[in-house]
């Protein structure tokens, strides 16, 4: 089994005359919990969309689970899409289906399992995402923001993905719910062996649960490494980013690590 899950090589993205990415490269290995940070407009979400094949970069290549998503044919892309899960910022749950059916969609679509086999699995996903058992019968509109995100994780987990992408997983959540979400991300990595790649601005998440940080600034990767190294990085943007919170947040840094 290949050890690198995501290989981004020399990605350039231009919108008209505006260059968002100017040669972005990094590699992510199996079982890592990686956070991508960067200021507004540095193209974090664009990069995420490019990695999962929703958008094509202007130049460069992106390899996800051994498939070049920039050159992949639709069937190849469909095959690789069964192997990763994506949680969109506000969940992107299908509003016409209840939570259980939302989670069941990938299973009904991509497996030949009978309904008897699917429902226990759906319930397991709901439990894995930390939702109470009765959440399955609820409609997305009846859920709070945190529960919507958990339901989205449950759906992303449905097909036993090898990688999960999370876009701002803790935005809009209260600190307690957000920390519980951090634990959930750690659980995905430590207990299920899933690679987790997230875009976030939540410093608590970055400083406590993330293994590795990739910093995007001025169209390039300006920092890539363990959180402690990034914090001390000599880059103006990184310095001002962490200056506010480093002092307060570092002491709790080690205890949340389950490993």
């Amino acid at each position: 089994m290949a050890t690198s899950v995501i290989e981004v090589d020399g990605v350039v993205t231009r919108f008209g005359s505006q260059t968002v990415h100017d040669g972005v490269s990094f590699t992510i290995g199996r079982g890592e919990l990686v956070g991508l940070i960067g200021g507004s407009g540095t193209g974090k979400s664009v990069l995420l969309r490019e990695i999962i094949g929703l958008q094509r970069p202007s130049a460069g290549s992106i390899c996800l689970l051994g498939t070049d998503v920039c050159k992949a044919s639709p069937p190849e892309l469909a095959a690789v899409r069964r192997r990763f899960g994506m949680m969109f910022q506000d969940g992107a749950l299908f509003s016409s289906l209840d939570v259980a059916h939302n989670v069941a969609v990938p299973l009904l679509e991509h497996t030949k399992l009978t309904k008897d086999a699917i429902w226990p699995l759906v319930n397991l996903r709901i439990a894995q995402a930390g939702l109470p058992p009765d959440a399955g019968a609820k409609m997305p509109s009846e859920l709070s923001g945190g529960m919507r995100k958990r339901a989205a994780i449950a759906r992303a987990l449905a097909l036993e993905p090898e990688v999960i992408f999370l876009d701002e997983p803790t935005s809009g959540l209260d600190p307690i719910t957000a920390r519980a979400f951090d634990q959930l991300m750690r659980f995905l990595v430590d207990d299920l062996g899933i690679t987790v790649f997230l875009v976030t601005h939540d410093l608590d998440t970055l400083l406590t649960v993330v293994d590795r940080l990739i910093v995007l600034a001025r169209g390039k990767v300006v920092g890539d490494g363990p959180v402690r190294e990034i914090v001390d990085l000599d880059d103006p943007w990184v310095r001002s980013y962490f200056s506010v919170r480093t002092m307060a947040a570092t002491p709790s840094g080690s205890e949340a690590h389950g490993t």
Partner: protein
Amino acid sequence: MAVTKALDSAAAGRWVSLETSGEGATLHLAGDWRLPSLATLGRALQAARSVRPIVGIDGQALTALDTAGALVMLRHLQSLAVDPSAIAFDNFSPVHRRVVDVVLARLDEITVEPVRHRRGFVAEIGYQTEALGGLLLGHLNFLGYVAGGIGTLVGHPWRLRTQELAAQFEQVGIRAIPVVALVTFLIGVVFAYLLGLQASRYGASIFVVDGVAIGMAREFAPILVAVIIAGRSGAAFTAQLGTMKLTEETDAIRVLGLSLMDVLILPRVFALVIALPLLVFVGNIMSNLGAMAMAAAMLDITPATYLERLSVALSTRHLWVGLAKAPVFALFIAIIGIRMGMTVSRDTRAIGVNTTSTVVQGIVSVILLDALFAVVFQALEI
């Protein structure tokens, strides 16, 4: 360790084999226990039934195990009335053991079947009736609320948002003229053709003018135009206000100390109540132009003759009957469209559902009202 029992099929043996000893049976799992082969795994476990109670599971030969695979295994144990936590899991790799533990920890939570509330036929009728009753009562309530708003406005006329009213009037009135004109012109053509076919047989071609003019003025122009506007502006009201509610714009308006009644509701109601009679009038003219064109082509009635007959046949009474209905139709369309927009629930799908509902309710209410008018006018002999 005693006899290793051969399984029914070789295929099942690839995944599970059974070993019985003094204390009971041990299941040996082998191969790739993951989601893609889940159905096969279930069958393999079924095939490996044992008379002796299962006391252990051996995972030495497992090449992969995911939570789905672990779930099938643990549920199989449960179905045999074996407590999975009392089972010895031998020779599992740390990674696989962790997967088993993850599922084991949540096993109690997932045994609940998904609650599917499907109502019975009678219950569904009752539920729908109650929902319809609630909807109509809500509309009535809202009508009263708007009436109250109009009452307040009469006392404080300067609170009328003339700018918003003008903008709405442009949207629902002026911009609707082309579609209203086109549709009523064509209906005039068709109507004249239909009457012409019959009337010319009796040499009564000139009475086509009476038929078209009175029919359009009293009934068809108001209904047609109201139906078009219900689809066009009623739906727009619901979509606009629904989106505003979803994006919390309506809440922002209230927080800023403005009144939804003044800013959103009354301008729309007034705009539609003023615009619809005018659009009906446009419809009257256009349908007669259409009929005039058809009459000239089909029945050799010149436009001059048509107009001359029109002045005799169409008394202003008919015109007023038609025009008087329009504001009432408009009021109902506006009330329905606005209320359906203001009551969308929090999910985005609700806007679509409510918009569709607005159009249906708008059209049905227009036709109901028209029937009511017919009964009343008949009783009053107008």
